């Protein structure tokens, strides 16, 4: 598969959006439990953005608002978008699983499920932060491993 130009600023804005949303849901839910609805919403945003880039909320925020106004400078890099999309989709899947735990853990008697759901969402945020701060993309490494084993075309 050929290299193309990927704007890494769009990826950084996406990762910042993920970290910020999970943190708001996590901290905010301590005071106002319904804020946990941000987790399934974020899962939907990430999964939609994986399959239809024009629906990727944070990337669109970058391309339509932050970039034109010069708030965030573009950083084009010769790269392949597939591993990044795969990583985003993986984040979306984990958040969807987290949402299921949160949904079934909402009654006070099932707080263990709530803890597991929140922990999964936190792990997604940690991985997005590691990618944002250190450039290490776990989803991209999984993509490489799957490609190496011939499970996907890497």
């Amino acid at each position: 598969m050929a290299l193309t130009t990927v704007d890494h600023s769009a990826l950084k804005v996406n990762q910042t959006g993920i970290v910020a949303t999970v943190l708001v849901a996590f901290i905010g839910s301590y005071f106002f439990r319904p804020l946990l609805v941000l987790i399934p919403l974020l899962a939907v945003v990430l999964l939609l953005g994986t399959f239809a880039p024009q629906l990727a909320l944070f990337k669109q925020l970058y391309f339509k608002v932050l970039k034109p106004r010069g708030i965030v400078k573009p950083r084009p890099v010769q790269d392949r978008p597939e591993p990044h999309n795969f990583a985003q989709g993986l984040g979306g899947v984990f958040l969807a699983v987290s949402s299921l735990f949160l949904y079934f853990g909402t009654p006070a008697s099932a707080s263990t499920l709530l803890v597991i759901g929140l922990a999964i969402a936190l792990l997604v945020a940690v991985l997005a932060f590691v990618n944002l701060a250190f450039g290490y993309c776990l989803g991209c490494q999984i993509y490489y491993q799957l490609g190496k084993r011939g499970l996907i075309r890497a």
Partner: protein
Amino acid sequence: MSIQLWALAVAGIVVLAVAGLEVYRSARARRLVAGATGEPSAEPYIIYFTGEGCTVCRTHQEPALAKLGAVRVDKVDAVAERELADRFHVYTLPTTVVMSPDGRALHVNYGYAPATKLDRQLAQARNGSALESTATA
């Protein structure tokens, strides 16, 4: 204890477990690579494992390799050349292997290795030293 604190504790334990697993995997790969050999050369050289999907390779590792100057760097596509990648137990990209002139793997860096580190390893390779491995990914 609140649900949030429990969740934080669970996430922390998972992160620590993964970090521990990474240290173990790196140490295991180092043991396995100890016997690996490549072709001999007049000077120490670097085998650089990369792939099309590796962003850090392009944004960090390749500029670092360019800073080394006149050092032979054998660029290998780890997906296309799986046999060679398996010989050096490449489990993450980029991976750089500093080879001694007689073709022995002296240093293996799993993950991004800065130019200063590679320079130091090359200097040690010129003088001769034991295998060292690090996981910086």
